[in-house]
């Protein structure tokens, strides 16, 4: 199984839907340990992405992803803008010129996205950030590929692992971002960035399994 530009576009639309549906929830999570704007910001960014997608639809996957990244950078407003923006732009570079992605291409793309977030946020796993959802997701994806699974199954394993990683952020003391001002008091709260990362991966996995 491979995914083409149309499927990638469908995935991005599904991500936008998931973030719109969870706008209040993300903002609520962010109000506990941040500045209560993550849901609003992500929804605004993805709505802007949707308005630019039609023109990107027929291009290669690399340029679709770069368009998503560039749009998020200038429309999200909070730290998630440069973080997700860098992730999508790096993924776009990894997919540059490709009109189809196979199971291995997606791994390369996910790894490039993670590296982008790590570089931009100077964060690593265990700091109560989106990395705590994305890193285990990539590990699960990579294991699934090694086990001979197809793209849809591997992505669904990745989304499950992201969900577990997201849950685990409740037990972590924040050391990055606004939540780090709270120190010990950040325990018990789920990280909004890890939550949006889970929603994004879950949306992508759902589209892949419907192809």
């Amino acid at each position, binding site marked *: 199984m491979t995914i083409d530009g149309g499927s990638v576009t469908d995935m991005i639309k599904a991500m936008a839907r998931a973030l719109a549906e969870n706008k209040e929830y993300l903002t609520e999570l962010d109000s506990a340990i941040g500045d209560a704007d993550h849901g609003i*910001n992500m929804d605004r960014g993805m709505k802007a992405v949707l308005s630019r997608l039609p023109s990107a639809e027929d291009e290669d996957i690399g340029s679709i992803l770069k368009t998503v990244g560039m749009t998020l950078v200038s429309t999200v*407003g909070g730290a998630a803008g440069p973080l997700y923006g860098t992730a999508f732009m790096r993924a776009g570079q990894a997919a540059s010129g490709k009109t189809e992605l196979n199971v291995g291409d997606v791994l390369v793309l996910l790894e490039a996205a993670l590296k982008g977030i790590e570089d931009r*946020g100077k964060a690593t796993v265990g700091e109560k950030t989106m990395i705590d959802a994305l890193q285990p997701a990539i590990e699960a994806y990579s294991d699934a590929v090694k086990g001979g699974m197809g793209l849809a199954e591997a992505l669904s394993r990745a989304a499950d692992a992201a969900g577990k990683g997201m849950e685990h952020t409740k037990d972590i003391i924040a050391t990055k971002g606004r939540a780090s001002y709270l120190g010990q008091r950040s325990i018990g709260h789920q990280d909004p960035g890890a939550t949006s990362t889970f929603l994004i991966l879950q949306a992508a996995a759902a589209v892949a399994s419907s192809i």
Partner: protein
Amino acid sequence: MVGIVIVSHSRQLAEGLYELTAQLSQDRVRIIPAGGMEDGSIGTDAARIAGAIHEAQSGDGVLLIADLGSAVLSSDMAIEMLDEQIGKAMIADAPFVEGGVAAAVEASLGSSLEKVKEAAQAARELKKIL
């Protein structure tokens, strides 16, 4: 002469610091405020910041003074988006107001980008009450 870009989540905060620094540097320094989002809402926008760096650049480099959190990430991203041919740009790890003022004064003396950045960062040690 080194240019300065003021990055804030708030358009008014960036413009306020611009007002202050422009007066102190007697309008000799190219200072560009890049506050808020395109539509005026609170937030930072790497593309807007990149545009401001372009405007502030005269070839001697540009120093970015940023407020909190995503202002730094977006500034970092803006620098990465720029064509390196147009000259250097750096972010000061400095307090917003004091750092901005120190940078503007240092830049107006015709100092190098490194010196302007140093002056901004040294503003952290300024005592308000002796």
